[in-house]
């Protein structure tokens, strides 16, 4: 009887060969589908409403206000998220070199910038000028921002959790893989915002 000796192949895999890597990818496919649906809803509602965004009025002068969302805070936040990619990348690299101190240092920076983005997101809601229950435009932009915020929180909790583990118990290959998975998730969270930011903030001003 011939055998295949499994003890001759490595234990665990740190990259796209890992099973959890595929699980994470499938999760991201699900989430991407959901964001694509939100974009479709946004564009569908837009064809119903002219002008878009709907007029924003108030009781006193000047009576009619600019309905477009303000750009300052949202644009700062976009850059915060983009900058956060650098320490996230370096933390992942350090984890793969099993460099405990480097992992924690860059992770702290990555998490810190992530939490800054969370705080700024609350000011972004204000920059929309509408509350969610004023009209369908406001409902969908609030939902896009809110669902994306939920994903930022998820990745920060996931990565923070792994970081605490590494801090308390040291870095090993299994947790280097966990770090890789949450890093990919982080990239994805920022990547979706690179696509959603122009939809929410720029497109209504351009066309």
């Amino acid at each position, binding site marked *: 009887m*011939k055998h295949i000796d*499994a*003890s001759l192949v490595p*234990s665990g895999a740190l990259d796209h060969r890992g099973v959890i890597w595929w699980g994470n990818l*499938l999760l991201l496919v*699900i989430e991407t589908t959901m964001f694509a649906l939100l974009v479709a*809803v946004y564009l569908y509602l837009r064809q119903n409403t002219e002008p878009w965004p709907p007029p924003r009025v108030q009781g006193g002068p000047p009576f009619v206000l600019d309905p477009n969302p303000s750009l300052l805070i949202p644009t700062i936040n976009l850059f915060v998220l983009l900058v956060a990619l650098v320490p996230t990348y370096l933390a992942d690299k350090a984890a793969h070199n099993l460099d405990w101190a480097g992992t924690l240092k860059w992770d702290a920076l990555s998490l810190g910038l992530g939490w800054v983005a969370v705080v700024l997101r609350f000011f972004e809601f204000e920059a929309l000028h509408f509350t969610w229950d*004023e009209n369908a*435009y406001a409902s969908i932009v609030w939902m896009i921002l809110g669902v994306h915020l939920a994903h930022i929180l998820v990745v920060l909790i996931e990565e923070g959790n792994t970081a605490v583990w590494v801090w308390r118990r040291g870095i090993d290959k*299994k947790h280097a893989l966990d770090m890789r998975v949450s890093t990919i998730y982080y990239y994805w969270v920022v990547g979706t915002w690179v696509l959603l930011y122009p939809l929410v903030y720029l497109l209504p001003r351009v066309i």
Partner: protein
Amino acid sequence: MARPDTPPPKQGDPALTLADEHRLLDAIWRRPPGLIGWLKSTDHKDIAVRYIVTALVFFAIGGLLALLMRVQLARPENTFLGPDLYNQFFTVHGTAMMFLFAVPIMEAAGLYFVPLMVGTRNVAFPRLNALGYYAFLFGGLLLYGGLLLNIGPDAGWFAYPPLSGPEFSPGKRVDFWAQMITLTEISALIAAVEIIATVFKMRAPGMSLNRIPLFVWAMVVMAFMVIFAMPSVMTASTMLAMDRLTNVSTHFFNQAEGGDVLLYQHLFWFFGHPEVYIIFVPATGFVSAIVATFARRDVFGYPAMVLSLLATGFIGFGLWVHHMFATPVPELGQSFFTGSSMLIAIPSGIQVFCWIATLWGGRVRLTTPLLFTLGFVMLFVMGGITGVMQASVPIDLQVHDTFFVVAHFHYTLIGGAVFPLIGAVYYWFPKVTGRLMSERVGKLNFALLFVGFNLTFFPMHILGLEGMPRRVYTYLPETGWGDLNLLATVGAFVLALGVVTLVGNMAWSLKRGAVAGSDPWQAGTLEWATLSPPPSYNFLRPPSVRHRSPKWVGMEESPTVIGLATDHHEVLATTILDAAPEHRYSLPDHSIWPLVLALVVGSALAAVIFHPWAVPIGGLLAAVVLICWFWEGTKSPGIPEDAPTEGAPLESGSQILPEAR
């Protein structure tokens, strides 16, 4: 991580006998004893059986509701059910059959048999799998709980606004529906991820893409459809719930504030049409398995079969607007969706002809599973033909919202999915329980179901063409619909008798059926290569594969896998395309956290029916539970540093993957 001085023996260690290996493996893979152990189980077989039993109970209740509706419709101006109860019944019946029976039970068949058919020991993420089951259970309890309190949803299984919106459906009825959707779709998505990851990464060495059983292919296609379809209904139902919830009151579907009710229909049917194929595609997997076994040959045209499944998966997403032909769809859109609705008949037709060719060229044994399969072919072709008829816009407008549509989709869903499913129950019952079901009762069972089904639903074609509308609780005697309705009601009782016979046969056979042995049907796929019922670890020595039907072609000479740990849950991961051995993958132990997380998420979603603060509070609690879940998982041994690098040669003489197909 520190390692003990003497590492625990691995499988194949000369110090271990096969009996030792069994003892050690069973000790770690078997769920812990007692009720707590039962709740902690992450064995895919335990979870799948729970799914199946729960879905069958939900199916029985849904069927009972249908029977009561048939009693109401048996004669004109009947007063057995009032209009309100009738509305709740048809809504809950449709919702339960789709979300609590058809999809979960198909996925459960995948969760039970995919790991066995690909020759591994569990699904890819066992704790997540348990979470999926509990989420499904709570979703079902929520829906039926609402009905028991006489506040069941009553706006149809699709819950179209504005009828389901805050203005025309005040109260909390529709919210039960919306939260049930979220819970059951979480469960469906989890099962889909499990199936895909297991098939991609955990196949037996040598099971390259062209040797994957058709059943497993069908499950993978279904899982991908779930991944792309389910988010749509979750988005729609969440938006509906937010529109309805005081304190939130969004306007997604409120025309007055720029919302759109047709947007809801698009979102719903972008899920709803693929849903039909999510139910049908796994059923074709059952049929392929059963036909191959009882024709005693591989299914004719394997590449055509696989390509048809994939084509169905893609085209299935291009049909949804044909549910909306009675709304203002642009003419070009109508033509496109008419075309694609006819197009999808082609891959289905290819599969039907391949099965016929298989039977034609095989040595057929006419057992109960095959009978149900033959019944399926006939009924599904009938349902398919009425489907192609309705792809035409003028016919669709004529029969829209009539009993013709009810007849059509019961032929496709019961004929196309429930008949193969019952065939599958007869076929795999001996594997799951170790005992065969009675063949004689099985044939009676088939006769009752086949006759009862046609008596119930065939007259509905005629009633529909005569103009009888759907979703009305009664009709006038002058319409002349009474006789055919009475016939359908009589048929429904025959059908119910058939279901009772099935359940009776299962219950009787569980204790007194003939002992099956590992392979009562002389089938070709791997699930029959282990004991019945399978041991906790599935395969003592996981197999490798050189053929599409490995049990039929020289399985004795295929090498088996040794070198896996005996002290924790370890499986062999293989490459995606060729299934060459790649690395060892450690699975977590049994765990209570999936149940706890499902309780938190389920309570939060039930509470959000009443107040939006349930979302942040529930989210926070869920995060705490997930952190506990993570820290528990780290108790399993980490990855040792001294493992050989990738590409280490396998033991001499064990190179596998010959060129044979």
